[in-house]
């Protein structure tokens, strides 16, 4: 299948801090789940902004086969508007895409049901726990029915138990509409659990240090973390990261 977004020998230079990324070649096929793993400053978030079309490359080529409203981003923080209810927050991208208000709110309500927040429709972000707010953010990203879902270290601020539950939730939601997912993470374990393909990036400027395929079905079956396949994959990712760190030393 043709990729929905492809980066070819892309480079990104920032005027004040030099090269952040590249050369970097990377593509995403429809419906696949890819994790970008790397140390801080490896340009993971820059890569994500390129994929989102929020930024252009300095060099190389970027091709996106996606229309308006077909890309969604979940940021590091829930990034909800404090003055809007959970439902209005989820409805916001739909309204921005031109959907009439009542329709957008109805669809937003359904999206909140899907992430298990049917009871919190009228709650304000300040009244939600960190995990709940992240779910609202996820519902907002999925409400538009995106073809590409980008997650920028979405669970970094949450506790381990909430992270694991949300990882399973994301995979379950993915199974319903199968958008392509690219997510950035520091966590080797999270990458190996959620993604079918893990791309390891080098210390900045980010290049590809290696790529690891994770065997097994998605969403993950119970006790997947105890399987040899998962453990081996996690080990391979760690080795790949450590090699890059060793090169620097």
């Amino acid at each position, binding site marked *: 299948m043709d990729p929905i977004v492809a980066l070819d020998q892309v480079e990104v230079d920032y005027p004040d801090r030099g090269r952040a990324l590249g050369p970097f070649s990377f593509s995403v096929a429809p419906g696949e789940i890819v994790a970008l793993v790397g140390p801080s400053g490896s340009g993971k978030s820059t890569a994500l902004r390129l994929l*989102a*079309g*929020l930024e252009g490359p300095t060099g190389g080529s970027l091709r996106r086969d996606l229309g*308006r*409203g077909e*890309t*969604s*981003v979940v*940021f*590091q*923080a829930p*990034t909800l*508007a*404090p*003055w*809007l*209810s959970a439902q209005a927050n989820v409805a*916001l*991208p739909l309204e*921005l*895409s031109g959907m009439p208000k009542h329709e957008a709110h109805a669809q937003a309500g359904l999206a909140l049901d899907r992430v298990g927040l049917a009871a919190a429709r009228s*709650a*304000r*972000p*300040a*009244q939600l726990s960190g995990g709940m707010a992240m779910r609202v953010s996820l519902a907002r990203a999925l409400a*538009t029915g995106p073809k590409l879902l980008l997650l920028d270290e979405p669970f970094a601020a949450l506790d381990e138990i909430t992270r694991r539950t949300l990882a399973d939730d994301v995979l379950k939601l993915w199974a319903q509409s199968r958008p392509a997912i690219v997510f950035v993470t520091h966590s080797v374990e999270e990458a190996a659990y959620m993604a079918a393909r893990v791309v390891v990036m080098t210390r900045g400027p980010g290049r590809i240090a290696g790529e690891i395929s994770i065997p097994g079905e998605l969403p993950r079956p119970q006790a997947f973390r105890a399987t040899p396949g998962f453990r081996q994959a996690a080990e391979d990712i760690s080795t790949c990261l450590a090699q890059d760190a060793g090169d620097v030393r």
Partner: protein
Amino acid sequence: MNRIMNGLAPLVLLAVLLAAWEIACRALQVPAYFLPPPSAVAIAMAMDAPGLVAAAWNTLSVALMALVLASLLAQAIAVTIALNELLEHAVRPLASVLQVTPVVAIAPLVLIWAGIDHPERAVITLAVLVAFFPIFSGAVTGLHAADPDLERLFDLYQAGQVQRVLRLRLPSAVPFILEGHKVGAGLAIIGAVVAEFAAGSGGIRGLAWRILDAGNKLQTARMLAALMVLGLMGVVLHAVLDRLEQYGLKWWRGR
């Protein structure tokens, strides 16, 4: 218990200071035109009560009207320049010039423009000029204070500039605008009083006129009485706006 103590503390201090003042005036036999004792001020306040209330209302109504006008004007301009970056660069330095120009210095000019028969117009205009800046400045700061990731979300869905201002930047600015109004209200009173002074006696019968009038007659107790009413009015207005700000923030944040 602690709360009661905290509430009583300033009142106790006030009572002690007033007592010291009273005793000092009597013991040192300070002439009344120089510094009347608080009891004389209280008597002047009681005797003058209807006049003082009317004067206070004159000043307060001017300040409130100025606050409303300044609020509308400041927010309209802030939102307009938020729609266009070039316009913002053009307007901001001019607004700063307005801020650093003392109201006393422009008062005579505004009085001439308002016309000799309409000093009240000049007083309102001057109060508006003073109250304008904190609201404008708060709104401009607030309009730039939206969560950058929310801005990116608006980029992602290719929202227009009008949508972005009305649905993201203006709501994000609400806490800043509320704070601006609180500061602006205090300044509106100051602006009204200063403008009344500049307008001189007769035209506008507000608290400043009472102070001027009593001063000309060397009735120091009446001067102090008017001054105290002015201070009291400021404190009450500030408390009311503080409460309104809290309610506003609660409404904005949902808790």
